[in-house]
C-alpha cells in the first residue's frame, strides 16, 4: 500500500475535466469511462481511501493502459495517471500474484493465430533477454514453450551472434573529446547488433570515447509494468552502479524505453543520485551535447517518423530525431498524422490484448499508408516489432529503422 499512499496527492490533482478523453488510445477504442485516465484516477483514489477493494474488474481496468503518457501530457493538472496505474498494478501483484495474467493470455491470444505469431516473437525475446522471471510467473512462457519450437518461422530474425559476444572483437577508440557510456539494450544485443555498431560508429564520428559495460542487465521496464517493483529495484541498483563505475560524462541509450527507465533510476534506488541527469537518448545526445555531424553519402527516399511514447513523452525528445532525419542528404522527412500517438505495442500489451492492440495499430498503419514512405524511422524496439507486425499484416514492404542507422549510412 505504501507506494499507492504516496500517490494520494496525485489523485487529488484530478479536476475531472475529462480532457484525457481526447488523447487516450484505449478510450478511443473502448469509449467507456473506466478506461480513460479520469476513471482510472478515480478508482485508484477510492482504493487509497479504502472505499474499494482490489478485484478482478479493478485489475482488468488497470491492465488496459499502454503507459503511453498521452493523458499526462494533455492534462491541465498533469496528473500522472500512468504512474498511478503502475502503482495499482504493483498493489494487485502484491495481493493477488501474477497468475491472473495467464487467464488473460489464454483468452486473449491462444485462440488467435496472428496473435500467437506475435506472442511467440515477444516471448522468445523476453526469454532470451533474461527477463523471463516475470513472464515465467505468469505461466505465459510455459504455455508457449511448445509452440516456440513449432513456430520458428515467425520468430524475429535473431542475430547469429549477440552484440555482447562481439564486443571483445570490436576495436573501440581509447580517447575522445567526450566520454560516453553506451547502455546495451536487450534488443540491440539480440536482434539488432548492427544498430549497436552504428551507434558506436556515430559516437566515434562525433569524437566520443565509447565505454560499454558488458554486465548491465535488462533495464527493468517489464518488471515495473507487471508490478514487480522489487526485482526492478535490484536491477536498477546494479545497472546504475556499473554505469557510474565507468566514470563517463554521459550515459547514452539507443532504446526509447530503456532510456526512459534509466532516467527514473534516481527516483527508484538510493545509489543512483545524479545518475539520471547523465542519461541521454542517443539522438538527444548527438543534437544537444555532441553537436550533430552528418556525412556526405546520401540516403535516397522519403522517411516518416513514429514518436515512441517513451521518447516523446517519457523523455520529452521529439525534435532531435527529426533534426537528424532532416539533415541526412537525399532523405525527405514527411510527417504522418498523429506521429506521437501510441502504436499499441506497449511492451507485452499487444500479446495480452491482441485484438485491442491491433485496433490501435490499424490507426497508426493508416497514417503511415497515407505518407507512403520508403522508410519508417523510430527509436524503440518494442514499437519496431509492433509496427513491423502491422506493416506485414497490411502487406506493406516498408523497413522500420532506427534514425541512427540511417545517419550512420552517411559516413
Amino acid at each position: 500500500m505504501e507506494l499507492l499512499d504516496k500517490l494520494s496527492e496525485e489523485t487529488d490533482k484530478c479536476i475531472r475535466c475529462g480532457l484525457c478523453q481526447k488523447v487516450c488510445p484505449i478510450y478511443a477504442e473502448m469509449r467507456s469511462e473506466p478506461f480513460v485516465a479520469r476513471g482510472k484516477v478515480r478508482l485508484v483514489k477510492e482504493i487509497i481511501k479504502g472505499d474499494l477493494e482490489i478485484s478482478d474488474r479493478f485489475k482488468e481496468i488497470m491492465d488496459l493502459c499502454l503507459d503511453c503518457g498521452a493523458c499526462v501530457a494533455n492534462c491541465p493538472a498533469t496528473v500522472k495517471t500512468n504512474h498511478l496505474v503502475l502503482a495499482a498494478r504493483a498493489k494487485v501483484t502484491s495481493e493477488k500474484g501474477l497468475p491472473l495474467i495467464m487467464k488473460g493470455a489464454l483468452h486473449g491470444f491462444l485462440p488467435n493465430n496472428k496473435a500467437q505469431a506475435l506472442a511467440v516473437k515477444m516471448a522468445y525475446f523476453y526469454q532470451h533477454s533474461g527477463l523471463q522471471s516475470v513472464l515465467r510467473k505468469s505461466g505465459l512462457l510455459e504455455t508457449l514453450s511448445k509452440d516456440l519450437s513449432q513456430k520458428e518461422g515467425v520468430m524475429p530474425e535473431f542475430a547469429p551472434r549477440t552484440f555482447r559476444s562481439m564486443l571483445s572483437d570490436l576495436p573501440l577508440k581509447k580517447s575522445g573529446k567526450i566520454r560516453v557510456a553506451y547502455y546495451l539494450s536487450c534488443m540491440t544485443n539480440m536482434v539488432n547488433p548492427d544498430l549497436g555498431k552504428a551507434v558506436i560508429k556515430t559516437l566515434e564520428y562525433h569524437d566520443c570515447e565509447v565505454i560499454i559495460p558488458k554486465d548491465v542487465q535488462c533495464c527493468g521496464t517489464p518488471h515495473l509494468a507487471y508490478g514487480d517493483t522489487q526485482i526492478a529495484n535490484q536491477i536498477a541498483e546494479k545497472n546504475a552502479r556499473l554505469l557510474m563505475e565507468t566514470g563517463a560524462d554521459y550515459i547514452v541509450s539507443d532504446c526509447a524505453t530503456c532510456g526512459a527507465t534509466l532516467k527514473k533510476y534516481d527516483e527508484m534506488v538510493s545509489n543512483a543520485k545524479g545518475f539520471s541527469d547523465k542519461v541521454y537518448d542517443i539522438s538527444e545526445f548527438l543534437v544537444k551535447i555532441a553537436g550533430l555531424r552528418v556525412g556526405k553519402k546520401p540516403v535516397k527516399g522519403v522517411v516518416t517518423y513514429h514518436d515512441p511514447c517513451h521518447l516523446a513523452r517519457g523523455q520529452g525528445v521529439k525534435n532531435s530525431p527529426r533534426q537528424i532525419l532532416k539533415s541526412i542528404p537525399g532523405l525527405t522527412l514527411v510527417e504522418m498524422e498523429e506521429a506521437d500517438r501510441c502504436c499499441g505495442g506497449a511492451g507485452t500489451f499487444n500479446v495480452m490484448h491482441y485484438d485491442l492492440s491491433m485496433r490501435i495499430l490499424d490507426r497508426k498503419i493508416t497514417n503511415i499508408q497515407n505518407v507512403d514512405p520508403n522508410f519508417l524511422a523510430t527509436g524503440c524496439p518494442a514499437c519496431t516489432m509492433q509496427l513491423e507486425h502491422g506493416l506485414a499484416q497490411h502487406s506493406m514492404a516498408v523497413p522500420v529503422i532506427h534514425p541512427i542507422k540511417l545517419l550512420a549510412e552517411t559516413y
Partner: protein
Amino acid sequence: MLKPEIVKKLIKILGKENVFTTKEDLICYSYDSTPHDHLPDIVVAPANTQEIVAIIKLANEHNFPVVPRGGGTNLSGGTVPIQGGLVLALHRMNKIIEIDTDNLTATVEPGVITATFHQTVEKEGLFYPPDPQSMFMSTMGGNVAENAGGPRGVKYGVTKDYVLGVEAVTPTGEVVKVGGKTIKNVSGYDLIRLFAGSEGTLGVITQITLKLIPKPEAKRTILAIFDHLDDAAKTVSGIIKQRIIPTTLELMDQKTMELIEGYIPSGLPTDAEGALLIEADGSAIDVDRQIGVIEQMCKTCGAREVKVAQDATQEAQLWAGRRSAFGAMARSARQVLAEDATVPRSKVPDIVRSIQQIAAKYQLTVPTLGHTGDGNMHPNILVMKQDEEEMKRVDAAIDEMFKAALDLGGTLSGEHGIGLSKQKYMKWQFDKASLDMMKAIKKAVDPNNILNPGKIFLKDE
C-alpha cells in the same frame, strides 16, 4: 440496488456485455466535471432507440431513475445520478448517419463526439459553428441537452440555432420525432427548442438533424492589450457599431494573464487590466478589411498594444496563452469551479469589476475569462484547500456573483446549465409563474419523474 429480476430483464434487452454492475463501473459513472457525485445502481450502454424505449418502459414499471449521459463533461452536475438508478451511457450510439450536401444538413446519433463531427463536415467544405471548448470530449447529444455555446457564439449562435430536427424517447417510453430538414418550420409547438437545454429531463435524444453552413474561406486573429477594462468594452461595442461581428471576442482579465505567464510565458502583460483576443472570418479579401477596421478600433479605444497575426504560426502564438489558461488555473488550485454568469454585452466591465470585488471580499482567487461578444463570463473560482471554511466563502461568493449578474439584467447560466449546481438560484431569476410553467411541463411529460430526477428544480419548491 435494483432487484435481480430487473437486472435480468435489462440483460435481456441489452446483452450481458452492455450491462455493468461492478462497483468499479458504478464509481466511474458517479461523477461529471463538477465536484458532485452519487453512485448509480446500474450502468447500461444501449445500441439503439428501441433498446432505450424498452429500458424506459421498464423504469416506469419499476419506478427507478434513468440518467442519460454523453461525455460526462457538463459543468452543472447534470449526469450525476443523484437519486441512484440507471445511467444510460450513450457512447455506442455514435454514428454520423448522413451528411446531406444538397440540403446542407447532417443527421447524427447522440454519442458522436463534437470534434469528430466538426472534422467530418469540414472535409466536405461545410461548417458546424458551435464550438464548446470541450468539443474533443463532449457529445452532440450532450451539446443539445445543455444547449452548449462557445467562443464563436457571438457571430454564429449556439447549439439550438443549428438543431433542425430531434428524435427522442420520452420519459414514458414513446418515440417522438420533431422538426426535419427544413430551415422554416412553424407547424405546432417548437418542441426542438424545448429539448435544447432540457438537461436530460424531458427525453432521451436519440437522433439529431443539424443545419450546416459553407465553411468560411479565411480567418485571422488580433490580440489587443488594454490598461483599462472599460476601454476593452468600448472596443467591443465600437467594432460592432462598425457592423462587423467578429467570430470570437475573448476577454482575459489581469489575474488570468498573471496565471498564464506563471505557467507558460506567452508574452502577455501582467500589469494590464485585460486583453481581447479577436478573430474574424469570411472571404479572404473581406477578412483583411475586417481586420483593418478592428485594428483601428482597438487603437482608437485606447489599446496599449495591438498584435495582428500575419500567418498561421503567429496566429497559434496569439492563441497559445488563451489555450493554456485552463491548465494554468488547474495547476494552481485543488479544484476549479468554472462559473458561467452572463450579462448584456455592455455590462461586461461592470460584472468583471463586481467579480473582482467579490473575490477580494471573500479572499478568493477568481481569474475571469469571457466571451465578451455575448457577455458570457467565466469567473473561475480557484479552490485551494476545499475545507469547510473555504467552501463557505466560495458558496457566499457564488451567491453574490449571481446576484450581481441578475442585477445587471443577466442570467444564471450562459451555457453550462442548472443541473445541481445552480438549482437554488432558479427562484432568484424566475418568478413563481414561470417556474410553475416549467415544472408543469416536466410533470406532464414525465408523470413518474423517471428522467434525470432531482435536477434543475429544488425538490421542495
